[in-house]
């Protein structure tokens, strides 16, 4: 059984085909990289998978179930959690609150337990408190618990995004350019984090321009160009793939010769 299956997905914006006939699958526990030049349709594909955009044609399957007609929150509630290319956090709230929000989809208590402060409410608050500590510990961010998200450094905000996503207990985690804007040291830290997340049994699909990260972390890579999949394979296969080299890595090779 595949974790995620993208089945001949098309998406048109007016006359432009942002995605045309994209096919690939991700097995449970894999880390798959999605690369391609700017405008290749990577983020559009993320939006289609997470339900923010409906595919014009084709289907997305998650664990053999069609999800392309579900609302974004329903897709998230299946355990498909995404991050955004542009830093996306809850700025005026504390780090702890940010993570607590990620936990919300697992919440069992609603309005009434909150109003009457039932036992269910109190146990849940304790669970959330524990979860916050666990996640901050995992990302080595314990110090940041009571900081307002907007006051964190850029690098820490990007880490917080991952913390929020993890708090939603993903089974398939979609990372949209997590290394964008990070310095080399932070990028190395991020690669460790991604590997650690995989060890927890979480399947990962990552869009990234940072080639070192993609080549070192991903087990398999899918390449998009002008909305079409032009290649798929292991990092070594992709590095030697003729068409990929031409459209994407071309300049580098030419420089060397």
């Amino acid at each position, binding site marked *: 059984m595949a974790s995620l299956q993208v089945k001949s997905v098309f998406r048109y914006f007016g006359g432009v085909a942002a995605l045309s006939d994209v096919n690939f699958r991700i097995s449970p526990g894999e880390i798959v990289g999605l690369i391609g030049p700017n405008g290749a349709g990577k983020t559009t594909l993320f939006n289609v998978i997470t339900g923010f955009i409906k595919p014009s044609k084709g289907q997305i399957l998650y664990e053999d179930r069609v999800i392309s007609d579900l609302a974004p929150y329903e897709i998230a509630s299946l355990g498909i959690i995404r991050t955004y290319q542009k830093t996306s956090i809850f700025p005026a709230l504390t780090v702890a609150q940010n993570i607590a*929000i990620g936990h*919300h989809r697992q919440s069992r208590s609603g309005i009434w337990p*909150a109003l009457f402060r039932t036992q269910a409410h109190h146990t849940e608050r304790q669970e959330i408190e524990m979860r916050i500590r666990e996640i901050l510990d995992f990302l080595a961010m314990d110090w940041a618990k009571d900081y307002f998200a907007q006051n964190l450094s850029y690098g820490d905000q990007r880490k917080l995004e991952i913390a929020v996503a993890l708090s939603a207990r993903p089974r398939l985690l979609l990372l949209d350019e997590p290394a964008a804007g990070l310095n080399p040291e932070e990028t190395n830290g991020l690669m460790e984090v991604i590997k650690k997340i995989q060890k927890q049994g979480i399947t990962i699909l990552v869009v990234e321009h940072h080639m070192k990260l993609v080549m070192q972390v991903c087990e398999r890579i899918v390449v998009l160009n002008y909305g079409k999949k032009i290649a798929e394979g292991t990092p070594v296969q992709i590095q030697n793939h003729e068409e990929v080299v031409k459209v994407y890595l071309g300049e580098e090779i030419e420089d060397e010769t």
Partner: protein
Amino acid sequence: MKRERWVSGAIIVIVVLVLPLIFESAYARHILVSSGIFILLSLGLNFIMGYTGLTPFGYPVFFGLGAYTTALGFTYLGTDFWIGLIAAPIVAGIFGFLIGYPSLRLRGPYFAIVTMAFSEIVALILNNWVSFTRGSMGISGIPHPKIVIPGLIDFTFNHELEWYYLIVTVCAFYLLVNWRLIHSCAGEAWLAIRENEDLAEAVGIHTFKWKMISFVIGAMMGGMAGCVYAHYYTIASPDLVGFYYLTTMFAMVIIGGRGTLLGPVLGAILFTAAPEYLRAAKTMRLIIFGLIMLLSIIFMPQGLNGLVNDIRARFRRT
């Protein structure tokens, strides 16, 4: 820290209970009572605007509906204040759902304008269905609340002092409900929507549902405030749904401080008391009033609540 909190809490309670005894004139007490009614209204608006980040320009409709529910109930069915206090939020909540259902699919200014259109529709009905609502005259003669236990108590809230304690009780109830809802998993969903609606949806929060719940609860709070208003002023008129109340209640919440509990309370008191004291300035009154609003938006973007926090922080540092 905890002890400090208890002490300051006790001081606030004592001040609130003793306050009307210091002001002996009926007029001053009247200002206190009407501040209280506006505290209810701005807490309700703040619930939607401050915590969930929606801008419901049509919010006065719930205030009006609450007032008319109890007024019409009294006129046609002979119901009293206590039934109104339960019926008004229910009716306002139902209208909240009906108005919210189409308009909550929109965001930002579109949502604001659509709710305002619904509010306008209700205003037109209240003004023109004369045989039922008595039109622009409004419904007057709504009785003061009574507590009657046959043979034991027969008490009517006639005087400002009695009203004051009634209002304080209702305000305390509002604050408790607000506080408990905000500090819960539900509250986190609302804050998430206010801060970043797309991300909220991406982590599995059913944003439409939670916006709806917030809108309906806020509507119910507005409805209850309307009921209290109608029984205090003994009148319900279509003005309640009009532009005057819209601007007043938004000013209270924004200048008081959105997304806090103290802010709307301070805003409501300021905006009820200030216009009264500015009466001496006659025609200059509204100009001075507008100037205060303008300056406070420029110099206190966090509202009065932000100012209080700044002062407190400075106090701590020294």
